């Protein structure tokens, strides 16, 4: 069990946990602010950004893709805001127009260009490929202390860990202004907080988490992790600190159980192949949310 587990399952599980927690942390504030669907929009618009970055540079590398995705996210935010103001159109509808059009453009670009030689296609963008992120040089738990073996860890793991650290640092440093601006925007403005900048910062940090996760696990798990663990945590407590802790716990739980169920579940019932880990993690997070919505102590709306 040991060697095989460390080589095949440990890296994906760790990456899954990093993704889940990195998305769930800003997700708490997005859900509180009624901006839960920003995660949805971001994960759609990332696709054209990555495709354009690939077409311009000709390589699939983290740097250009991250830059392309970030530019696409900014274009989307500006476009949504412009449509909302110019047409006096409700934010949700403006968002729907922009992200579907950008996603459609991304898909067509991708299908038109010759990307068969590289690892870039629509399905991969949607579901990711968590299972393939294996650590070939690991021979057992001892490899964790072997510098040479550690160097061959899938690059997604350190990248995702870095994203998690950035996100966690942002939430920790800006805890008070974030809390204030999320619960009582008017008061926050009154005491002189730059609420616009805080909101934008939150969106940018969410975009960082989404873009970093996108490459490893696909967009669907990103949306699920932005919303499900924080929403479930919201049913468990009335205190924000507890809620964030619960959401991180739920996110970790969903990642671990989801991965194990996807990888080993079919074997237990006698099937031969495994199922999509990203899909399974999203499913488990939904089950957690369902359980919390049915029996969480604070599930009802107060007043």
């Amino acid at each position: 069990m040991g060697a095989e587990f460390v080589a095949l399952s440990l890296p994906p599980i760790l990456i899954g946990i990093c993704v889940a927690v990195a998305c769930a942390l800003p997700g708490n504030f997005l859900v509180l602010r009624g901006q839960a669907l920003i995660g949805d929009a971001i994960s759609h618009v990332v696709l054209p950004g990555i495709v354009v970055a690939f077409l311009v540079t000709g390589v699939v590398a983290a740097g250009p893709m991250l830059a392309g995705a970030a530019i696409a996210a900014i274009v989307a935010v500006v476009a949504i805001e412009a449509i909302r103001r110019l047409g006096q159109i409700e934010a949700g509808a403006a968002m729907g127009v922009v992200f579907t059009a950008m996603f459609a453009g991304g898909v067509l670009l991708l299908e038109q260009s010759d990307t068969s030689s590289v690892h870039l296609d629509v399905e991969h963008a949607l579901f990711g490929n968590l299972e393939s992120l294996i650590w070939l040089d690991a021979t057992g738990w001892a490899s964790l202390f072997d510098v040479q073996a550690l160097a061959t860890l899938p690059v997604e793991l350190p990248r995702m860990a870095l994203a998690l650290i950035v996100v966690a640092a942002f939430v920790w440093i800006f805890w008070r202004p974030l809390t204030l601006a999320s619960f009582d925007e008017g008061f926050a403005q009154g005491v002189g907080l730059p609420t616009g900048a805080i909101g934008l910062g939150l969106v940018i940090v969410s975009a960082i988490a989404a873009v970093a996760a996108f490459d490893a696990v696909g967009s669907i798990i990103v949306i699920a992790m932005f919303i499900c663990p924080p929403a479930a945590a919201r049913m468990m407590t009335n205190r924000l600190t507890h809620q964030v802790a619960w959401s991180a716990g739920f996110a970790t739980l969903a990642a671990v159980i989801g991965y194990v169920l996807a990888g080993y579940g079919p074997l237990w019932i006698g099937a031969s192949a495994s199922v999509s880990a990203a899909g399974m993690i999203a499913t488990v997070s939904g089950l957690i949310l369902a359980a919390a919505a049915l029996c969480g102590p604070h599930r009802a709306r107060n007043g």
Partner: protein
Amino acid sequence: MLADALLLQLGYNAALVTIGAMLLGVAAGVAGTFLFLRKRALVSDAISHATLPGVGLAFVLMVAMGGDGRSLVGLLLGAALSAGIGLLCVQWLTTRTRLGEDAAIGAVLSVFFGFGIVILTIVQTLNAGRQAGLEGFLLGSTAGMLRSEAMLLAVSAALVLALVVLLRRPLTLAAFDPGYAEAAGWRLGRIDLAMMGIVLLVTVVGLKVVGLILIVALLIVPAVTARFWTERADHVVVLAGLLGGLSGYGGAALSAVAPALPTGPIVVLVSFGFFVVSLLLAPGRGVLASVLRYGRYQRRVHVRQGLLALAQGQPIYERLTHRLLRRAGYILPDGVATADGQAAAAKAQLDEARWAIVRGDLVFVSAATRYDGLTEIETVLTPDQITDVDARIMAPQAVT
């Protein structure tokens, strides 16, 4: 080739698909307008993503029962069922828990879609040859559609459209004046349910054409586009239907020419093209109209301020003001007022004096709110009132 496609000359199947897509577009545009006006546009995103597990499970079930698994009717029934469950989940989460609708939409969308992916990976291992059709539901594929499938698409799109036309009265009422609709005896909850039912049908019928990821665009984009052109309720509905129909028709025709590309993105981009044109060119709300309006306003302010400066004998340094006044023939190149300019300046100053009286008198309080430094007082007060105001300007004041 494209002309052939647009003229329905690419064979019976392609023609059926194109017409079906057009009917679907009309139904989606109209239904989407109601959704958009009820501010629930993105609920359709949750509904459409929630179809995926239904499609997958229906396939598995049909294979388990010894069938082929690719029967479009069966797949669409499964899609409708799971989309319905997804819709109920959104409703339940929104009404029974403290979550907002946005969080409920996002949760249902991602979880159902994730579960659908799990089922798809199971389907892929069932028998490698047959699952090919299911990926088409993600982004739509009309290439190589069977005659029976194209027929089903066209007929069901026509039925959905008929349903929308049948229910247009209560839907319009609920969308534009929910309070009045309730007072008039309509059950708002039921109308909403009917609206969601129609949206669900549009989504399910559109699965094969546009795909579940992008069908939401066909519901939202035409409605938003139509909103740019008119302020009238009934016109928005008709225009959205028209735009949706054109997008469906054009997109499906284009897609018939490029069978390697998924249909959904093409339809969406055609629809988005209409949107961009409207955003730029629509009268009233469009970007071009806004820029023109802004420029006109700016020129009016400059001319007015320039004239007031002339009236007080001040020199004009501001370049734009100078140019505008010269072009209007109010001043000479050296800044000296012409006869026209003197008359206009005197008139402007008189206007200001009259406004000063109006704004200082409670009798004119409603007229005074129209003051913006540009409006001519003749457009606000009657000649009698102006005479009255003038009398007060001219009236000798006692020196105390």
